[in-house]
């Protein structure tokens, strides 16, 4: 009996991920999020039709890891670039993958207007409440009291303003069909996140409008926590400012058990 016949493959690298190392830190949520995106694209048969737009930020090199067509956008402009692609090639599956600085600070206008136009694009929004790539500066989503290199002593609303809940903001736009906020900080949460990503992609397949999944994502390096403690921080502290769950859903889908 050959090895192929004797063993059944139960786990492997998704085809939508390249066989390579990433530059992400140990414990970083990006690796998990990349895998969820890749698994969903594989399972939905979308890889060969996908055009992805990575952010500027930690995931700027995502085109080295994802195994499908990708184009770099200037910082914050991913949803404008994606709009151009989707309108030019409506039959393609168009995905943006953006961090909190990209999506909720420098790219706020592009985010709000693409969402409000109801562009048929799927957005994966990685919220780790910090600027990772540049070394721990304050993000638009940094929590009150949270330390950052540009908010020494912690974010003070009088000095730095308050954290922004962009998912809630854009849920008020008519063009937005589905928004869910999930955590990447436990196996149970990761499983729920995968369901949300898949649903987000299905919205585009069904041409219903704009859909986004916000993923609360650990950044042990810049939070100065161990990977384990950073999971706890997501699920115990971060969720108080960013509660998990469906923020908007007008898909009419009946959730399959």
């Amino acid at each position, binding site marked *: 009996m050959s090895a192929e016949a004797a063993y059944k493959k139960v786990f492997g690298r998704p085809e939508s991920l390249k066989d390579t190392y990433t530059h992400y830190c140990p414990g970083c949520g990006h690796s998990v999020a990349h895998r969820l995106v890749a698994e969903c694209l594989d399972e939905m048969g979308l890889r060969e039709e996908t055009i992805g737009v990575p952010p500027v930020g930690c995931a700027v090199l995502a085109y080295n890891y994802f*195994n499908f067509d990708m*184009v770099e956008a200037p910082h914050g402009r991913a949803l*404008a670039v994606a709009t151009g692609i989707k309108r030019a090639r409506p039959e393609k599956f168009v995905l943006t993958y953006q961090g909190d600085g990209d999506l909720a600070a420098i790219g706020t206008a592009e985010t709000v207007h693409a969402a409000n136009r109801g562009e048929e694009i799927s957005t994966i929004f990685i919220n780790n409440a910090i600027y990772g790539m540049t070394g721990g500066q304050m993000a638009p989503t940094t929590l009150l009291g949270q330390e950052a290199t540009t908010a020494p002593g912690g974010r003070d609303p009088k000095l730095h303003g308050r954290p922004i809940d962009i998912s809630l903001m854009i849920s008020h736009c008519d063009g937005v069909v589905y928004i869910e906020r999930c955590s990447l900080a436990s196996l149970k949460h990761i499983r729920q996140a995968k369901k949300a990503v898949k649903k987000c992609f299905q919205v585009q397949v069904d041409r219903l409008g704009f859909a986004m999944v916000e993923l609360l994502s650990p950044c042990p390096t810049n939070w100065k926590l161990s990977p384990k403690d950073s999971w706890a921080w997501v699920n115990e502290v971060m969720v108080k400012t960013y509660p998990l769950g469906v923020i908007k859903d007008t898909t009419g889908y009946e959730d399959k058990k």
Partner: protein
Amino acid sequence: MPSEKMLMRGSHVVGEAAVRAGCRFYAGYPITPQNELPEYLSSRILEVGGTFIQGESEIASINMVLGAASAGMRALTSSSSPGIALKQEGISYMAGQELPGVVVNMMRGGPGLGNIAPSGADYFQATRGGGNGDYRTPVLAPAGCQELADMTFVAFDLADKYRTPVMILGDGLMGQVMEPVVFPDPIDVDKLPGKEWALTGCKGREPRALFSMLLNVNILYQHNLHLQEKYDEITAKEQRWETILTDDADLLVVAYGSPARIAESAIEELRAEGIAAGLFRPITLWPYPTIPLRNLAAKIGKVAVFEFSMGQMLEDVILSVGDRAEIYFHGVPGGVVPTPSDVAQFLRSALKGDAKVGRRIET
């Protein structure tokens, strides 16, 4: 078949020519004095199955063009001076990612919000590159509606051929003026050369990525050398200019765009007085027709530069001519459009060397 002769406004001419040149994607944000172009395309481009988007900003619009271009579309955006300033980030990225696209600037007075009158004050911004990095943008400067139509075709062809953003540089006057125009045959977009780099989904091939971030210094070094080779090729092959009445000229007027049209009338006025003036009109501002201008200026010995700005194209004339001829300069800023007689006064003054209008440039 080419079109019937039509009377059309400059901004509409660009829109119609873009559609005929195979443009199927437009994104832009309103700004005077070029609104007639997006207004025209908002319905016209839909007739050919294209896409029109009024973006939320100039920044979003140029990035929508970047996206459409990455998917292989012939794509256009347009604006006027302050709006073009906002597009510079996207233009730099497109240059770095080697994405084709056409950007129209109908220039208005500046700096800042300035005014909405015709200007030439964005010459540096257009020819030197307003965005970051070591890149060049081919710049076409038509001088009238027929040339706007023809150069719109050229712009899309150059953009695709060299995988670069290309700028059409007009001004508020050219955008508004109505002139007769005959359009070239529409292009069959299905017969345009394939783009083997475009993003179409990776079915049956390896995935493609289009990016300008090259963290490895050696790779970015090589990328810049590659870009420079391309710019050298464009410089060698794509210079365009026109000369009028230069064979017997004692004075060579150098002007582009709308000022060149005014200069033509001024030259007629001088010719009627028996003064032999001629015109050198650059049509590509980058690459600048340096050697043709140098040769002609050296032969004639006296050059008069006239522009709607305070000595921007003048720098390219100085770089081209050096001390091979006397150079006189007259710049009109702020959206003021002088009459042909005003310019004729400058030309007489340059011939006499009395500097009553304009000034002598020491080189």
